């Protein structure tokens, strides 16, 4: 079972090899573009699921993406600080923000609905603050990174290949951290907290520290995604990358794929981002709105009938079948 849940190593290496040679096989650049987006959103969604799998439904990952990306871009645009340095300041800002918000929420025992709505308000607050400082952020119009053509020292490349490998690296990092958390003592602590917070605290688990730690890790990975996205697209918009819609999009990707598994969020990101790009190019932006309407219906149906997501349900079914087979084999001598 262990091997199935984590995919066989050989298959994994094969996929990784494909991913590495992919940008060099000469497919249209458009494919590379889509895959970069899938990698970035896959990483952010995986980061979201660090918290989501313990039923901490954060709706402020849009804000973390936005804070890191805006810090980096603003420092570059106004002080000509290289994004390679600026990104650390951006991630520091995200870590502090997530730490403060997380600590406050968990210290005062906000769970379930209350936690989700509070994080939603945080997202709106960040978006509004970005819009309010329209003198430096250009408000709702969005901000453009000053173009320098190819300038590796300033995190700008005309080719998509460097971004491709950075996004791939981030995705692998996010999956690796998922594994690390899954094997750590923290996972056991968080599972116990999720089942019964008071009981967990009574056997000496530090509820606030465990929850805050995972919240900060998750936020920082999301922030890295934001930085790469900003440098790659070179444009940021508070409404589409920060506000409620963006934050909900990560949640939906995770649910669609299956938020309790390692590969689920990535699969959700592949399906939604891939479909979105496909529809946008084939049918134009008008139909994209209607595609989102369909996603809405699909998500509702999924939540009602398959709350474990596509990949999660698949894994579970396979697992059940194996168990049945094993039971039958052991029953017949």
């Amino acid at each position, binding site marked *: 079972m262990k091997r199935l849940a984590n995919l066989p190593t050989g298959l994994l290496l094969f996929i990784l090899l494909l991913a590495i040679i992919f940008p060099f096989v000469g497919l249209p650049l458009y494919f590379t573009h889509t895959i970069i987006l899938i990698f970035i959103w896959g990483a952010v969604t995986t980061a979201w699921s660090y918290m989501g799998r313990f*039923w901490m*439904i954060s709706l402020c990952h849009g804000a973390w993406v936005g804070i890191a990306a805006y810090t980096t871009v603003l420092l570059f645009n106004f002080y000509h600080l290289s994004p390679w340095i600026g990104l650390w300041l951006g991630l520091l800002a995200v870590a502090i923000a997530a730490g403060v918000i997380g600590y*406050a*929420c968990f210290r*005062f025992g*906000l769970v*379930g*609905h*209350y936690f*989700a*709505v*509070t994080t*939603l*308000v*945080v997202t*709106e*607050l960040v978006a*509004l*603050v970005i*819009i*309010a400082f329209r003198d430096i952020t250009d408000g709702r119009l969005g901000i453009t990174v000053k173009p320098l053509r190819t300038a590796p020292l300033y995190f700008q490349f005309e080719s998509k290949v460097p971004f491709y490998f950075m996004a791939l690296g981030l995705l692998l990092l996010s999956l690796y951290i998922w594994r690390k958390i899954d094997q750590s003592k923290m996972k056991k602590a968080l599972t116990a907290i999720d089942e019964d917070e008071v009981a967990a605290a009574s056997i000496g688990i530090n509820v606030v520290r465990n929850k805050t730690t995972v919240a900060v890790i998750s936020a920082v990975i999301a922030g890295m995604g934001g930085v790469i996205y900003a440098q790659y697209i070179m444009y940021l918009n508070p*409404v589409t990358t920060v506000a*409620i*819609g963006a934050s*909900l999009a990560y*949640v*939906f990707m995770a*649910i669609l794929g299956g938020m309790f598994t390692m590969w689920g969020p990535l699969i959700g990101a592949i399906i939604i981002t891939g479909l979105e790009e496909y529809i946008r190019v084939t049918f134009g932006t*008008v139909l994209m*709105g*209607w595609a*989102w*309407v369909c*996603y*809405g*219906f699909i*998500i*509702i149906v999924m*939540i*009602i009938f398959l*709350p474990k997501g596509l990949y999660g349900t698949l894994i579970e079914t396979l697992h059940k079948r194996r168990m049945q087979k094993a039971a039958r084999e052991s029953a017949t001598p």
Partner: protein
Amino acid sequence: MALLSAIIGGILFGGSLALLAYGLNLAFGVLNIIHFFYGQGIMLGLYLIFTLTVWFDVPLIVSCLVAVAVIVALHVVVHLGVIQPLLKAPLINQFLALASIIIILENSAMGVWGATYRGVPITLPVLNIYELYIRTSNLIAFIGSLIVIGLLYLFLNKTYTGLAIRATAQDREMASIMGIKPRRIYLITLALVGVLAGIAAAFYALVYAVHPHWGGTFTLMAFVTVVLGGLGNLSGGFLAALIIGVVMMVASFLTIPEGGPIAVYLIFLIVILLRPEGLLGVRARA
């Protein structure tokens, strides 16, 4: 004088906010769900009123009634299709299913009406009382909201159905032992919430021009009101709505347009962390 105008504007806004908050509070108190697509329901109503009056020349009153009917129908459909199957599911599943209705409604509105602002082109006069400027449309919304809140109070306290709703909100199991059918009460409550949303849309039709992302702010504002007033506390909600209305208008007046919502959200964060039972509330049942 301009500051006084802002304060009066805030009180007027607070009145209609109280109406919104009652709907959310009802849904939360009785069904224990966060009615997440509330603002989007109102947005749909505003679009319907706009379409009927401007594109089809239907009298405003008639189109408002149609809008109320459609919003009630929307709530009933959502209740039967989404909320009822998820009543026993984890809270977060309900929350996310309702959130995806936002996506459906907003993108449908975008597809049908486009991203431009749509408003009914009827402007009511602005009252000028000793340099105090009051928009008649705001005044109508305020007085209308007060009347509706009064009627709602009578309904919840004087009719059998209303009392059954309150009983269910207080204790689900006890109420069902007393012969109240929770499923029927849930449906009636959600239809009632739909009526409130529809009436809010009718009052807002002359105040606001609507665009597809119009609703989110109002849901959040109404939710902030509910939390400040204390969940399940109807009279606390009214005072909280007035406070929020005034804070929002005055902060916007003193700083920049975004200052109002920013101030309100900051107050919300402080209150939910330090006094989750609400500014005026008694400690809610766990």
